[in-house]
């Protein structure tokens, strides 16, 4: 099982059900039991004295499934970018050798996409609708136009921060080439950065945003919703955070909780293998010359 997969996790349920996977692995064909060579003594019938040894092979009882127990008892599973308990969506998991690829996946610093639902008119202490209510406001004055304006302001300020964090001189040929490929992004730790925001639905008091971002946490997105509310001279809480894309993995690739079986996972791994390899190569390839360049400086 040397690959990585993404699974869909519904919000609020932190389930870890690898048992079905182990069950699937253990129900596969077991290796044949080893053969043990036994010398068996037989006394010839004529005089009862003449001993002869016959050699025969007996399957070893040590390899009996009831004695040795199940072959697979644990499985290495690693998780990709965190998804907190109240959010849902595409959740990347690495199985077996795939856990090592998760490190590369982190180093590639790919963007993720979320859809975020919000409601105007309320403010809570943890920015979500479950928290303690702090204030209630009116929201009649908010129009879609005003919302779009705030969104573009956020986008602009984050774009500036992005260029700063990317640590690139914009006047160089290298920066130009990267920009053409659309690969300008920080390759080290940075504060959360939003690359694009879009309003999907506006029906006061509810609204839905699509946010493309980097190095984010789900709580940060809730805070963004809260800040949008404040900017609009009202207040807003976030009702749902859902990740719809993690790098190249989109919602359609994800497996539901009921689909976590060995054949499904195997198929999904084979399907995504090429995509993942290509993406990692693409992202890490342009990282390497930059790293060498840096080393040259020092």
């Amino acid at each position, binding site marked *: 099982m040397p690959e990585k997969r993404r699974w*869909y996790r*519904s*919000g609020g*349920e932190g389930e870890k059900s690898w048992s079905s996977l182990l069950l699937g692995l253990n129900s596969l064909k077991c290796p044949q039991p080893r053969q043990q060579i036994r010398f068996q*003594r037989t006394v010839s019938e004529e005089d009862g004295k003449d*001993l*002869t*040894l016959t050699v025969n092979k007996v399957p*070893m*009882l*040590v390899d*009996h499934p*009831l*004695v*040795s*127990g*199940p072959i697979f008892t644990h499985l290495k599973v690693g998780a990709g970018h965190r998804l907190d308990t109240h959010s*849902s969506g595409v959740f990347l998991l690495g199985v077996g050798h795939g856990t090592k690829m998760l490190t590369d996946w982190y180093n590639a610093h790919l963007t993720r996409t979320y859809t975020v639902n919000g409601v105007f008119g309320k403010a809570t202490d943890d920015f979500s609708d479950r928290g303690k209510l702090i204030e209630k406001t009116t929201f009649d004055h908010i129009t879609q136009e005003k919302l779009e304006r705030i969104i573009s302001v956020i986008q602009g300020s984050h774009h500036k921060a992005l260029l700063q964090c990317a640590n690139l001189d914009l006047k160089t040929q290298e920066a130009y080439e990267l920009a053409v490929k659309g690969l300008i992004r920080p390759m080290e730790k940075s504060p959360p950065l939003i690359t694009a925001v879009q309003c999907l639905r506006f029906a006061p008091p509810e609204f839905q945003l699509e946010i493309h971002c980097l190095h984010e946490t789900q709580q940060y997105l809730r805070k963004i919703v809260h800040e949008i509310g404040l900017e609009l001279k009202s207040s807003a809480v976030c009702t749902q955070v*859902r990740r719809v894309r993690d790098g190249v993995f989109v*919602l359609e690739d*994800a497996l*539901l*909780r*009921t689909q976590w079986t060995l054949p499904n996972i195997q198929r999904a791994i084979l399907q995504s293998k090429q995509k993942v390899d290509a993406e990692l190569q693409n992202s890490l390839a342009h990282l390497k010359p930059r790293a060498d360049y840096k080393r040259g400086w020092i």
Partner: protein
Amino acid sequence: MALWTRQLSRYCLLLNAYNTMKSSELRKQSIKTWRCFLEPPDLQQLCPNRYFCQMLLKNFRILHLDNHMLFCSSSSGTSQTSLSFTDKPKTEIVSSLDTDVLLQDLEDELPLSALEEISENEALQIKAAPPPPLESFSLRDYIDHSETLRKLVLLGVDLSRVEKRPNAGQLLVKLDFENDIKKILLFLKDIGLEDTQLGAFLTKNPYILNEEVEDLKTRVNYLISKKFTKEAITQMVFRAPYLLLFSVERLDNRLGYFQNELGLNPRKTRNLVIRLPRLLTGKLEPIKENLKVYELELGFSKNEIRHIAHTVPKNLSTSKIKLTQMFDYLHNVMGIPHKLMVLFPQIFNAKLLRIKERHLFLKFLGRAQYDPGQPSYISLEKLVVLPDDVFCADVAKAEVKDFEKFLKTL
């Protein structure tokens, strides 16, 4: 080295023969000479490996000196008995016979040196299997040495699971199939367990092999006296393997508790316990707690609780947290009244996540209608029991793919 052992053994034989003929005074002297011979200072120089030489000497001393001493004392014994007899020739014959036997014994005990040539027949007699380990973490190491373990595996006992239980592995290694296990197996057969069930039963409860058959019989007799049928006892013992390990007093207490607490008549109590014998073996605390939760937290009446417990006994032993979560969702989110839940108590056994998903899907479609008085009513049974594809086709009247797509938007 081989030469030396040969000499040693020959010397030993000679010495024995000599000893039998001589008087007991001489014997002490011979032991002395024996000791002198065993510690020749130049021998260690001959031997390149001093440690090995010393080991060998030590072994020889233990083995052969012991034999020798034994022999001496036994022959002195014969001489003492011979003294009590009056005629001499007879004693001589006896002693010579004795020495023959003893000499043979000594010859047998001599270890063969590695360099010595042995005959074909002798070679066949040698067993080359390695000895079982003195201690181990697993029963695997003993399976090739123990006939008992082998037979248990053939019965279907999962040793890999048994060895994880405390003290169970040690118990199995010490037992003997013919003496200890057979009687228990016969007893279980008498109760009515099938041959194929024995393995699974012993996997779950290996400790029963340590019990006395008499004790087990009294417990079964108690159950019979409480008017449990034979089939019922078989079923109970198989489904709660630890049932027979509990004392009669405890079983009696438990049966009394359920009868009084739930207010059931004896027939219904029996029915309850037969369907979930775990109630008798498990802890009582969570059950007491659950009964309080049903009554105080969830607000069911005594009568309703009795009905819930009797139709689905498992509801008594589910976890308290799961129970309250489920009730909370059903009552406060889906708006289902107590009456409907009592009609279908299996609902408390269902998975909350499954109910949530389906309810939200139905709500999305506008079909979430759980009031039996109104058209297009969806019963709780339909909501929970049906598998996904049937649920989508019959209840939600939608495609399974749409259902899956919907789940990804949650």
